[in-house]
């Protein structure tokens, strides 16, 4: 298996553009798709049967007492409507199956593609963003099919059927429906064109107002503390009136919905034409009634098309967003032919420069060496490039210039899978799965026995608190009120990494312990984890920094100082300032370092 995971998705779809993407999903379900269309067509056809039978009954009544014809017409309505209901049911079931399957498949496909994406991709995408794609956007594609497409196809037949059945009553009855349809489509197109941008503004201004409101109330103590209530009220009222502005605009456009007028005019036109033909003796009264009944069928699409059209538009936009993710390229090559041996643990940075974008250099000319088994602390302010350094080691990103070497070999010459499987990263935001603590610990090595798990937990000072839960190692994380503190989560994450016994461990640590006893345990865990392997620490803990084998001080992406604690006290001004708060006891140390 190559480094980037390839999930076995049992189907292939077209990813060239949203339309083809949707289409290729649709044609995967031919049976339900066809049944849905057949159901929609027969629904419209049987609906059109009603005016026909009414016309028949009409003629029968006018012509005198023709009981058999009346019974025939009544039964005709009865049976046709019963069939219509059955077929409509079939159509709805099919549409439901169809849309749910599409949701399932698209989600599957998207998820599989996410698993195949590089770490670089996942680092750059906020989880919330991805969640929105996997849940909401995929759901939108479902709704696009049902009710969206279902309604459009369904009501579409209501537009078409009169076009074909009207001429069977009398040939020139085709004229009015045709004219209506042309005008209707133009009107609909223009209506949506004007409505959509406004509707979007309504949503976005509403979102802004909501965000602003939530922020103000959360920061109310600051507002009150600064006595700025009135300004906040003014600002809120401004966004309220902005929302109102677009809301009213949208209402105005909706009030203008011209298709209603078109429909009334069509009915009158139809009545005039029918009466005219009746006067000429070309049709009988029953046909007048039947024709009018056909025109009434247009009510359904005119009233319903509004929602379904925008539903389809939303779904299409979602499909586009999903495709952007599926089609996102990962530039790192897997280098299957590369070196894949056990890492000894020497890490060397040689004049490394790197920027996430071309304009902004995050790291400039970074050089340092870590010997196997050493612990290095990388320190610096937020934004100075600490985390970026760790991302170059496991090739989450490739350098722009210079080299990162592991055991003297450029990381780009390593087999990516081999490289990454020997480097463990404990991230700042620790994620634990909602499964048992034991399963979380053995996540990276499923073969680990219960004894292994417990041994590791003991080493990282986690055994004690795990045992304090009623269900011990079988406690499910995040359930039934079991909440883990930051320090506990961190120790579990260290244990998880520990189990896989990686030659290189990278620990991005920004937790803090409130009390000294917890702090003791966390530090013991880190000491234990770093033993016997090369460890890179990004930490705020002065004692870890103090005792690291090597300290790299970063400022604005450059190494401004490096060495041991004593050397830095002598050579680095900003490093010395950190310890200056302890001046009464630090001073001799500084002197010692200098002397």
């Amino acid at each position, binding site marked *: 298996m190559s480094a980037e995971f390839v999930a076995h998705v049992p189907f292939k779809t077209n990813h060239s553009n949203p339309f083809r993407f949707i289409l290729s999903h649709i044609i995967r379900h031919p049976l339900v798709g066809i049944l849905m269309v057949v159901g929609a067509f027969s629904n419209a056809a049987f609906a059109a049967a009603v005016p026909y039978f009414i016309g028949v009954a009409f003629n029968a009544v006018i012509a005198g007492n023709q009981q058999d014809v009346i019974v025939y017409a009544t039964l005709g309505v009865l049976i046709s409507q019963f069939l219509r209901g059955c077929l409509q049911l079939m159509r709805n079931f099919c549409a439901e199956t169809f849309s749910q399957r599409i949701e399932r498949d698209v989600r599957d496909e998207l998820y599989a593609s996410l698993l195949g994406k590089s770490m670089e991709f996942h680092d750059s995408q906020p989880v919330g963003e991805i969640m929105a794609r996997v849940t909401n956007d995929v759901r939108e594609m479902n709704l696009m099919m049902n009710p969206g497409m279902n309604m459009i196809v369904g009501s579409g037949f209501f537009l078409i059927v009169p076009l074909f059945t009207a001429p069977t009553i009398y040939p020139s009855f085709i004229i009015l429906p045709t004219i209506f349809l042309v005008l209707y489509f133009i009107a609909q197109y223009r209506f949506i064109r004007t409505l959509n941008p406004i509707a979007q503004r309504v949503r976005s201004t509403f979102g802004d107002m909501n965000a602003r409101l939530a922020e103000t109330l959360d920061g109310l103590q600051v507002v009150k503390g600064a006595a700025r209530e009135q300004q906040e009220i003014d600002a809120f009222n401004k966004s309220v009136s902005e929302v109102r502005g677009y809301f009213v605009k949208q209402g105005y456009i909706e*009030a203008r919905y011209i298709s209603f007028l078109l429909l009334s005019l069509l009915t009158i036109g139809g009545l005039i034409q029918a009466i005219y033909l009746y006067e000429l003796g070309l049709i009988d009264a029953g046909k007048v009634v039947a024709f009018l009944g056909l025109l009434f069928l247009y009510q359904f699409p005119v009233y319903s098309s509004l929602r379904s059209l925008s539903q389809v538009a939303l779904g299409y936009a979602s499909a586009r967003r999903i495709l952007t993710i599926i089609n996102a390229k990962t530039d790192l090559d897997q280098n299957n032919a590369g070196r894949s041996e056990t890492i000894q643990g020497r890490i060397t940075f040689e004049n490394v420069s790197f920027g996430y974008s071309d304009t902004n250099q995050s790291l400039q000319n970074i050089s340092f060496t870590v010997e196997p088994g050493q612990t290095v602390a990388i320190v610096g302010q937020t934004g100075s490039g600490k985390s970026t350094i760790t991302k170059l080691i496991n090739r989450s990103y490739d350098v722009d210039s210079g080299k990162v070497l592991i055991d003297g070999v450029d990381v780009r010459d390593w087999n990516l899978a081999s490289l990454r499987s020997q480097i463990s990263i404990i991230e700042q935001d620790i994620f634990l799965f909602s499964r048992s603590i034991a399963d979380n610990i053995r996540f990276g090595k499923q073969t680990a026995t219960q004894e292994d798990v417990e041994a590791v937990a003991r080493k990282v000072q986690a055994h004690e608190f795990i045992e304090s839960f009623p269900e011990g190692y079988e406690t499910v994380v995040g359930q039934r009120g079991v909440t883990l503190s930051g320090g506990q989560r961190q120790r579990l994450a260290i244990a998880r990494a520990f189990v896989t016994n990686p030659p290189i461990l990278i620990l991005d640590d920004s937790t803090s312990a409130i009390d000294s006893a917890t702090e003791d345990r966390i530090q013991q865990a880190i000491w234990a984890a770093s033993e016997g392997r090369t460890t890179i620490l990004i930490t705020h803990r002065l004692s870890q920094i103090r005792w690291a084998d090597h300290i790299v001080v970063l400022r604005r992406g450059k190494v401004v100082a490096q060495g041991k604690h004593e050397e830095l006290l002598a050579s680095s001004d900003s490093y010395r300032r950190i310890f200056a708060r302890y001046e009464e006891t630090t001073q001799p140390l500084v002197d010692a370092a200098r002397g």
Partner: protein
Amino acid sequence: MGMFNSLNQDSYDRLYSDGYLFKRIGSYFANQKRVLWTIAGLLLFYSVLGTVFPVLIASAIQLLDDQKDRPQLVLLLGGLFIAAIIDYLCNWWRGRMITRLIGDGISQMRSDAFAAAVNRDLGFYDDNKSGKIVSRITSDTQEFGNILVIFSDIFVQIVQIVILGFVMVSRSKELSLLVLLWLPIFVALSLVFRYLSRVVGRQGSRAMAAVNDNIQESVSGISIAKNFRRENLIYEEFVSVNKQSYTINLKRGFVLALIFPVMNVLAGFGSASIIYFGAQAVVTGAINVGSWYLFIQSVERFWFPIINLASFWGQLQQGLSSAERIFALIDSTNKVNQIADVHIEKLNGKIEFKDVVFEYKEGTPVLDRFSLTIQPGESIAFVGHTGAGKSTIAKLIARFYEFQAGELLIDGQDIRTLNVQSFRSKLGMVQQSPFLFSGTIADNIRYSKPDATDAEVEAISRSIGNGEWLETLPDGLQTDVGERGAHLSMGQRQLVSLLRVLLQRPPIFVLDEATASIDPFTETQIQEALDKILAQSTSILIAHRLSTVRSADRIIVLRAGKIIEQGNHESLMEQGGHYAELYNTYFRHQSLSYIENSREMLAQNT
């Protein structure tokens, strides 16, 4: 009405009578009486026209049968045409007016609700989550807007039913009876479906929430899975969750898919019965052809509005309870009330607590006869276990809470007599989790002193650590901090909130120190900023850092709302009392000796 939403009651919710609610809702439109009357007129006109249309068409059909009276037919067609145009214009005008009315009403209500929310005590927000209040201000007002639409819809439907019913009964009592006979079946069926869809909806959404949780987890866990190369495991889990979601949704969808077909079949049967019995009536001469046609056209127009009324009723209830929730927010009361309105021009910063008693909940005092005098310019650090009353003292000084007994004097003045706004503007406060508003860093520094010049802001920012902290920000002082300051690190947020106070130069400074971990470089700069503030203000420090505790003039050791020790660090340590115990629990690991000895103490050299 409160009964229906007892699940999400809040403490300040009240019950209003429906009559009062209507009256109060009405008050939001009191100054728009003319608009309201016009709308009512238009609605009436519109609903009459809506029934006129089928009646006119039926008359035209009738005239057809009569074989004479051509001028009347032309007149009728002309009438239809005019009716269509007027109908459209009416609808258009009505739509515009209602939209505007609703827009204004909602806006007014939102403004009122927001002003009320901003003016509530902070204690109010201890009991009520701000998220819920946000939804009252935005969503409930939206719901309330729907009431008006529902009202106008109900109005139109009722008028149409009445007119149509009247016309039908006048044409044929027997056929009208037939139409009515079907009605209970329709209503019963629609109620059954409403119940069913509610049940499957509830079950479905519960199951969906579980599935969504699961998807959320597997998506969040992707990077861990990749880290440990466990993609296969997590993918298999996802597939099974995804399948489960599919099955649940399909079942729910199938139930909902039943509704329209069944209703349509029923309507078809109804029409068939009208066709058959109507035809018999025409044949026997009981009614004419036109009336028969009118009945055929009208059955659905008569049935569906009545079915709709049932669901409108539910929506109306919902709208009213929304209005109730908004009014409850507007009407909720504050506990902090001032008895006078004294503006202090220049505050010296003397603070005196005299036998102050304070309790959040009755019977469990947090501060019990608490007395303390803080001199102008003095800096005091409060230490103690969680719940000892440290934060409470700060909140009382800021006048965020009302105390139950005793006196709290600011420069010798009773705090209850002060104008709260002018007093607080002389107070510099930093919360435990520093809060920034979206905007630039400069905007945030300037928050308490909006008239500060760019140069002032710049100078203050550079005075800390030579402005080194600004270097790592993409646009320096103009960097956008993001919502709630999310783009900045915790340390940067803290620094900004301290600079805010430095710029303000308040006579009294209250700091509830953050416990979050901050990189040592930023930490140093925070200490610098703090030193500067301490030098210029009377300072109340709720300290979590050893260095802050030590920089105070006086350390007050609290236990259960009482002062049990005070003095400076060295003397308190020597006493070996509660402070020494607190030191060993909270501060020991922040000391240099800990740092220096940690390797020996903690490394497990095997």
